[in-house]
């Protein structure tokens, strides 16, 4: 099918984009990579009156990695962030997760920030932001930009804290803490599909090299990414602990019980892998 008609705007700079968004209010939608929005238009599941295409605003195509973390601009494509060795060095979970997002060809257009705003409950990048405690920066024409913490950003399935008139200009992913490791495990019916369930894990060792903190973020098993603190849970009790703290729903792809089962298995594997990575980081720092 084809998209319904809309008014098209192709602003050249951020100010112009924000002005159009302010004017069109709830009838305006940002078009970034289009890899989620255009399917919705083609299937007539969305019919915005105005599309604000940000693809010509080059200053939004940024990616900066520092000791604090990685800041991803609104036009940085999945593929660019995935390939960046600076970004991977500062926060390895970014590349681990991006490899699981759709197919390489989709990643050439889709943006990380678009993925966050789209807020699919089975998407990988919202879980990464939530697990790391990152934030999204939202700009608007008639006021200062606001920085929204991940915990407040994902409000429901396909719903974020973005208000009409706002544009997400960047997202910030905190760097990997010392003596830490990450992993992303998921299960999808076919490679590149949205996962039935998935787990991002972050393990931090204490100064003596014992497991200090363990956190996971679960996808596909709730309305938004679910962050669980598993600190103190024995490795062979991780699966059970996760299963007891999620309430997945059934759909045509999988039953609720199967999703709960999967989340447990994937959590045990992800925590184990993240633990191995943390140990490597610890040994490396010790030498």
């Amino acid at each position, binding site marked *: 099918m*084809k998209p319904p008609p809309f008014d098209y705007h192709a602003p050249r700079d951020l100010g112009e984009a924000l002005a159009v968004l302010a004017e069109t209010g709830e009838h305006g939608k940002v078009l970034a990579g289009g*890899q989620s929005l255009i399917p919705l238009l083609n299937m007539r599941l969305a019919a915005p009156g105005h599309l604000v295409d940000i693809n010509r605003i080059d200053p939004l195509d940024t990616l900066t990695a520092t000791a604090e973390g990685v800041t991803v601009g609104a036009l940085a494509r999945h593929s660019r962030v995935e390939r960046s060795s600076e970004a991977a060095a500062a926060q390895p979970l970014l590349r681990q997760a991006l490899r699981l997002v759709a197919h390489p060809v989709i990643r*050439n257009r889709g943006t990380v920030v678009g993925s966050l705003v789209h807020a699919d409950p089975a998407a990988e990048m919202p879980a990464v932001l939530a697990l790391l405690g990152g934030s999204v920066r939202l700009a608007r024409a008639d006021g200062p930009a606001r920085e929204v913490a991940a915990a407040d950003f994902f409000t429901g399935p396909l719903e974020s804290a973005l208000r009409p008139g706002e544009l997400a200009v960047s997202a910030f992913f905190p760097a990997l803490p010392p003596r830490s490791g990450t992993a992303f495990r998921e299960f999808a019916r076919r490679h590149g599909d949205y996962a039935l369930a998935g787990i991002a894990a972050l393990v931090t060792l204490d100064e003596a090299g014992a497991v200090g903190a363990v956190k996971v973020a679960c996808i596909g098993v709730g309305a938004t990414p679910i962050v669980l603190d598993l600190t103190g849970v024995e490795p062979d009790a991780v699966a059970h602990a996760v299963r007891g703290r999620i309430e997945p729903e059934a759909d045509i792809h999988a039953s609720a019980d199967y999703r709960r089962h999967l989340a447990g298995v994937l959590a045990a594997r992800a925590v184990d892998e993240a633990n191995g990575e943390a140990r490597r980081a610890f040994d490396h720092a010790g030498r």
Partner: protein
Amino acid sequence: MHSITLVVNGVVREATVPARTLLSDCLRHHLGLTGTHVGCEHGVCGCCTVLMDGEPVRSCLTLAVTADGHEITTVEGLAGPGGALSPVQRAFAECHGLQCGFCTPGFLCTATALLAENPDPSDDEIVEGISGNLCRCTGYQNIVKSVRRAAELIREEA
């Protein structure tokens, strides 16, 4: 209506399209380049894949107006001067990498870009690289062989 200019297969082309026109439809209906096929229009099948500034993208998930000013290579543009088939095209013919041919334009564009970035891919990298393209006929074995053979041809002819 919007007037756009694309460089398609090295030729400057102009078109006047409504904003909602997909790049795939612009190529096929407005520019008469029907080599780009359209299967699903939601990004899943991959047969509409074209190269935009050298990178493979879904033309069904790109608006023609967004592509304004960019370089597009379609399957019609893969052959060399005088219509000599490219190494990727020859490899697909040689290894029976197609049957009905519906998916082939997408595979050819995807494989061309894959080999430009990674001239010597492992079998796993080939499978990963074409995982976004569906084929209802071949069972993929010969497509993987074709991509491997294309890599050889490109190396031999370098």
